[in-house]
């Protein structure tokens, strides 16, 4: 018994991720935490997307199930679980059954290496970023099998579009990623890293987010990635595989109920996954903003209050809306519910002011906040842009993003090596 406790406690003083430290217990705990956190994030994202999109479109969005529709995603999930499970007659049953699981597996597995903090990751691989890109592109396999197994025309076209799109944008995405990885090698030993944690630490050492490195090269690389990642996740304006006005629902036309909800889950977790790549590579991962300008212990302390303040603000928003609820007996439960939700948020906020919590959640908070920013962008795109046509999509991928990415890669390398290059040029002239 004592040994087990010791085994569990031994990790707490470690500065490695549980996977890297080889601690099986904590790795399992982290896997569960990430899984639960991700599921909550998808549920929250479902509600937020509908709400934010609704407000952009001068309407209210869900308002009936729970206060301000807060319980709507849960009601939807229940509805989807209770629906009849239909497999079309002509479908290839095994493949049809398998496809959503491939997609979900791919979308969830990538989170193994996502660093929420220097120690807050399931594991740290020395090929982290490659692992993420590789596994996340496996989801195209699921989409293609889904489209093919449905044995129907719309899904088939959707699947073909999807595979072509993902393959083409992966190239540009890869180039942008490489240019960021090149930046990690600008240190004493001239060795870069592919480890997700290492990339963030490189930004910490260099004292700059790669977004601003070699201005404007970093921003361009980030831009390429930001465009490619929207295409990778099949979201507007690149949502051709599921363009509802053309292909009814694209590759998941024949799916319903639980299987459909798996696709939904996978889509949203893939969005979070690629956003976390972007955050890790260019936005300094878990690092708080302005580490150069506003440094010192005072600023550190001030910034460590922000998570608590953010939650308190959310709580205050809930209370404000509780006060605005209609004063009618029918709304009593909803009003109470909203107040309760606000109270929970406030409590979390207050908890975050406690020194031991404050020191540990800061990095998770900043990482999540940055990812949340990307999620908002996704919704904003969807509210603003029309959809690209397939040939135009390919044109953007191959004729714009790819050459830009290549040029950028070379430029980054040249700028990064300028001292050595100059030295060599000098040497040649001196001879």
């Amino acid at each position: 018994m004592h040994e087990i406790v010791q085994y569990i406690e031994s990790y707490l003083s470690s500065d490695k991720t549980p996977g890297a430290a080889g601690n099986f217990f904590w790795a399992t705990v982290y896997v569960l935490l990430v899984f639960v956190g991700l599921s909550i994030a998808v549920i929250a994202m479902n509600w937020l997307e509908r709400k934010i999109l609704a407000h952009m479109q001068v309407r209210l969005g869900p308002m009936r199930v729970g206060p301000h529709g807060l319980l709507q995603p849960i009601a939807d999930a229940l509805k989807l679980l209770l629906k009849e499970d239909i497999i079309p007659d002509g479908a290839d049953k095994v493949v049809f059954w398998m496809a959503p699981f491939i997609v979900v597996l791919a979308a969830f597995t990538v989170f193994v290496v996502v660093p929420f903090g220097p120690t807050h990751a399931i594991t740290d691989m020395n090929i982290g970023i490659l692992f993420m890109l590789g596994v996340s592109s496996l989801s195209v396999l699921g989409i293609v099998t889904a489209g093919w197994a449905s044995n129907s025309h719309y899904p088939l076209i959707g699947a073909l579009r999807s595979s072509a799109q993902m393959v083409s944008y992966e190239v540009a995405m890869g180039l942008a990623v490489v240019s960021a990885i090149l930046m990690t090698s600008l240190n004493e030993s001239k060795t870069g890293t592919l480890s997700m944690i290492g990339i963030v630490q490189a930004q910490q050492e260099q004292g700059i987010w790669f977004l601003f490195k070699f201005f404007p090269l970093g921003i361009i690389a980030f831009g390429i990635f930001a465009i490619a990642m929207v295409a990778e996740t099949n979201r507007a304006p690149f949502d051709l595989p599921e363009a509802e006005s053309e292909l009814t629902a694209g590759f998941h036309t024949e799916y319903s109920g639980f299987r459909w909800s798996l696709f939904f889950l996978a889509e949203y977790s893939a969005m979070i996954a690629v956003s976390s790549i972007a955050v890790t590579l260019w936005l300094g991962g878990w690092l708080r903003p302005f580490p150069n300008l506003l440094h010192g212990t005072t600023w550190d302390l001030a910034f460590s209050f922000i998570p608590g303040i953010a939650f308190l603000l959310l709580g205050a928003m809930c209370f404000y809306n509780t006060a605005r609820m209609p004063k009618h007996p029918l709304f009593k439960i909803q009003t109470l519910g909203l107040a309760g939700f606000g109270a929970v948020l406030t409590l979390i906020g207050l908890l975050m002011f406690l020194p031991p919590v404050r020191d540990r959640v800061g990095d998770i908070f900043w990482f999540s906040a940055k990812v949340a920013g990307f999620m908002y962008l996704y919704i904003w795109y969807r509210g603003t842009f029309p959809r690209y046509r397939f040939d135009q999509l390919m044109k953007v991928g191959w004729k714009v993003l790819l050459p830009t990415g290549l040029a950028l890669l070379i430029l980054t390398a040249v700028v990064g090596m300028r001292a050595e290059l100059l030295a060599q040029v000098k040497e040649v002239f001196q001879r």
Partner: protein
Amino acid sequence: MTDPNTLSPLDLDMPDKTFLDANELVINMGPQHPATHGVLRVILRLDGEKVLGLECVIGYLHRGVEKIAENRTYTMFNPYVDRMDYVAAVSNGLGYCETVEKLLSVEAPPRAQYIRVILTELNRIASHQLWLGTHALDIGAITPLFYTFRDREEILKIFEKYCGARLTTHAFRIGGLQYEAYDGFERDVRNFVSFVKPKIDEYEELLTTNRIWLERTKDVGVISGKDAIALGVTGPVLRASGVKWDIRKAQPYANYKNFEFEIPIGENGDTYDRYIVRMMEMRQSLRIIEQAVEGIPEGPIMAKVPKVMKPPVGEVYHSIEAPKGELGYFIVSDGSTQPYRVRVRPPSFVNLQALDVMCRDQLVADVIAVIGTLDIVLGEVDR
């Protein structure tokens, strides 16, 4: 550009020549499909994403309106026409009433004419707003739909205040109007005009210079003026191809000759031009409404028409410029209380013919854009 006269007719029963070439795909778009604006069924023959040809199958919303007319008196048939193009019911009513008036050789009094023009032009704006919202939605921009519907609501409110109905209004009667303009009608209309002007700019802000919108609509579904005339296409679709043909100017009806307005025309006959033409038309309609509301004369609203209408034996064709194009009524009278035959020339039905010409050798996504840009209403296509 494909010449409509040389187009080979589609032979869908023909066995596939390229049997082992799995590229060719026949898909049924509709009748239940989110982007076919009702119950249009399009049989698409695709080579990958490219459209080899298509055929429209219509009739899913056929209600036999023309046959019904033969069993109704002239007055009784009036509400039925509202159900054809249900997003522009007022225009339908105007066309029918004017045709019967022509048959009876009566003319609506000036006050009625003015109110008719105001309501019809309001309806044109409402119809174009609905078109814009759904067209943008088909192309993937979901937000304009809600903006246009919000503003269309104001028009529907005016209709509701005027005659109690919002969509199928039955606003006009043969010989004039049944209802006098309600108190504050002019104020409401003026308010609407000043309300909607900046809103139209707002729609344009979202789309007109949007890169994706430009790419999706420029050079998509091109139809030349010559082809358009050959196919009998009318309305904004024809005008966008550079043909200046608007019945309000060409064969003025109601009292359109009293108003100053321009006919916006396009150059290339592509989807973008049709979009621009309709946007400009909305502004011109506002101009007409402004002039009309300033000049509403006093006087009666109903001409002298017999209670039991027995038009003289004869036939008459009369057409108006509905929001979607030339809406014509051909009525044959045998001297009885019921028309012997009513034939409607619906703009949507005729414009839909151009779909095949406009979509050949384009991509699937363009079919959707072209269906949207033709602005068809299946109630009118099938009748």
